[in-house]
């Protein structure tokens, strides 16, 4: 079992986390960085005092694997968001969305036996792509994919113990492909016996897809799932790069640059300028013929900044 992560008290101020933090890149203000948050916590700053950076963090998780002190930085943000959450002016809207997802989950049937696919709301909003992914994976698709729980994790909302038990019931010990990177991160703690796969890695391992990744592609890894299982996936994607010759959205530290810097208040909203700037920066100095994304959310950002084809990974497989 992995050693328990450490808390903000261990922060030595090395700033390595700043180098990979899209929120810092956007603001260039140390308060808007994991280091700034950890340092502020060392001075007993409250969640309310840290509202602006807590809202701005995209929970990409890039800071976690680079922290030499092993601090669970995105976990710290999530915990502080729980303290902050009740006071958020848009809490009602988030609660309404969570309730909508919870209602759908309540009507869900018990999950089928065997390997299971938890797509998440983004993919569910694209039924034809969802159907293609299901066929490719060959896993049963869970009707309760924990979308309300994923949203609560992200926004600091409440997850009742009963709801959590019902969602997790019968999932441990199984193979699960999870579309939501944040949920995947949490499931790694909640389901120690499950074989968890990110949707991206699960699809990229399939030969009909892998064969079609080209050396002229810019392949965009979904950051949350990647950083949550960094030690394993850094090797996995290095093999993918070596085999296919594609370029990856990894920086020099082999951290996945997120295309989206989407902050909490804009969670369900349209793209903001910062996202467009981030996607532009990712493409700077590159001339790919095609962009392949693991996450649908990233597709929109790239479509805004370039006119080359942007495909979801599942779309690479021939019909």
């Amino acid at each position, binding site marked *: 079992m992995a050693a328990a992560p450490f808390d903000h008290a261990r922060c030595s*101020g090395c700033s390595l986390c700043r180098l990979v933090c899209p929120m810092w890149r956007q603001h260039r203000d140390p308060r808007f960085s994991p280091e700034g948050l950890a*340092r502020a916590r060392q*001075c007993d*700053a409250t969640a309310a005092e840290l509202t602006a950076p807590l809202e701005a963090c995209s929970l990409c998780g890039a800071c976690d694997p680079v922290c030499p002190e092993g601090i669970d930085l995105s976990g710290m943000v999530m915990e502080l968001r729980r303290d902050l959450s009740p006071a958020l002016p848009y809490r009602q809207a988030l609660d309404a969305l969570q309730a909508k997802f919870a209602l759908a989950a309540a009507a869900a049937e018990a999950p089928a036996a065997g390997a299971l696919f938890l797509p998440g709301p983004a993919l569910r909003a694209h039924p034809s792509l969802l159907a293609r992914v299901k066929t490719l994976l060959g896993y049963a698709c869970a009707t309760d994919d924990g979308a309300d729980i994923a949203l609560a994790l992200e926004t600091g909302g409440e997850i009742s113990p009963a709801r959590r038990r019902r969602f997790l019931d019968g999932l441990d010990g199984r193979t699960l492909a999870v579309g939501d990177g944040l949920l995947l991160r949490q499931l790694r703690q909640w389901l120690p016996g499950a074989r968890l796969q990110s949707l991206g890695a699960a699809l990229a391992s399939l030969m009909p897809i892998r064969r079609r990744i080209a050396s002229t592609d810019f392949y965009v890894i979904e950051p949350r799932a990647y950083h949550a299982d960094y030690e394993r996936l850094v090797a996995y994607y*290095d093999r993918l790069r070596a085999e296919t010759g594609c370029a990856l959205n990894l920086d020099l530290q082999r951290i996945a640059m997120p295309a989206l810097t989407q902050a909490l208040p804009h969670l369900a909203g349209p793209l903001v300028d910062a996202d467009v700037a981030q996607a532009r920066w990712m493409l700077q100095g590159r001339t790919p013929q095609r962009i392949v994304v693991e996450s649908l959310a990233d597709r929109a950002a790239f479509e805004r900044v370039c006119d080359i084809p942007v495909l979801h990974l599942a779309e690479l497989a021939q019909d």
Partner: protein
Amino acid sequence: MNIPPVEPGTVGPCPVAPDALQGIKRQQTNPARWNGAGWQAFVADLRTAGVELAESRAACGAYATDAGGTAYGQPHGVAIARSAGEVAALLRTAQAHRVPVTVRGGGLTTEGESVAYGGVLLDMTGMSRVLAIDATALTVRVEAGIYWHSLAEELRREKLDYLSAPLNLTSSVGGTLGVGGIDVNSARLGCSADQALSLQVVTPTGEIVECSDTENVELFQRVILGYGQFGVITEATLRVRPYTPLSMHYYYYSSLRTAIEDLQMLDRNDASDYSGILTIMDCAVNLLVAFDSDEREAAFRRDWEARLRGHGEFGFALCMLGHYALRPWKAGEALYLLKRKQAVFPEFRRPEYMRDNKMHDRSVVFSRAVWKHWGSRNMVIPDLATPADKFVAAVERGNAVCRKFFAHYTLYCVGIKLRPEHRPHYEMSCVPPDAEGWAYGCEFEPMIEGEVYSRDHFQAFKNAIYDIGVDLGASYYRFGGMMKGYIRRTFGDELVDKHLAMKRRADPAMILNRDVIF
């Protein structure tokens, strides 16, 4: 020397005296906090000038210490640098109100040089963009708060790299140009400060000035390696080079002297592109040698490798086995070596950084290892910088001090190629005045390993190392902050008084980076 007591928070008659940090002689003490006189009026004027200042507990508390983690102080307010114009307005206002301004880049000093003991903390990382890359002229113009790593990230998109930078990713260009910047290629390419072609500087009185070896020469000479005393660097033009991955070789020694002699032999003969020594105490001394091209590597193998007296990994392991088999009472040391090797070595061979046996992104590999295996909340890294001929003595004597003070430690030695035309830059800097051709530096870094040591233990250790420097007539990579009591002993009254007079002229209220050198 008898120094009269000084009103807390004011500048004394001799801010460079051996006991200039007011406190108990040769024990660590933070400088007295500036007393805040006139702060509110200053803040009001600053706001009128359009400079944003954060005064909250969280904003100021984030800067309570530097990478050393032994000096503590809090600013009254924090300004994030956004433009040279804003920095100029800040300094003009601070000069008028006599408010101290401490500049901070990466904050990777270890002697409190980037800690503000009251007044304003000016965080330069707000100015951290690449402004222009000229791939033909091989130059880059950057804002000075940029981290070397962020610069590398952008240069790589153009298949370029910086020349040399500290092995820690998060030091800033401006902070490094002020103190030196030593890399494992410095024996060939010089220190980072040697790579600067021109700078935009905001003087302590708030003028924005471009300077170089041909324009405002005197300012350029004082700002380079000047510990931030003569101006805030806001932009820099640096030389860059094509990016190459490198092939790395390691040779292991059990004698510091032999390894240093071999290192200097390689440097003198330009036999490698990268060279340096990294040790586990004085038991396992690792000479690393690396190359940018296959041709250089082949020439090394042909002409120089056989002359090295170090062993390969396997041969050295056998030597160690024999050594410790005959000294069973040193089993603890042997076990430590083994554990350290198992923890550290894989870090330098992580497969995602190796392609076709070449190391990619060496600065990332080294820095990650440095932070993971040497970094901690307390970092005490005294050093000695000497001419080539005094270096063995300096390291051997420093090593004896380390043995006395700590159970485990690391030594890191590299050469710096000196540029004769840059001699004026080197005055009163980390480059020893009598060094010709190369200067050599050794950092003595104890492994804290969760132990708790008193600040006075650390200070006594640093004093013992720095006393060697005084004795040998050496200099130091770091001589500011808590070690500034050594400045007169090291550089002599005449030179120090000359620089102090220049500082007083440039900074009449002595506000910029007070307590660092002057």
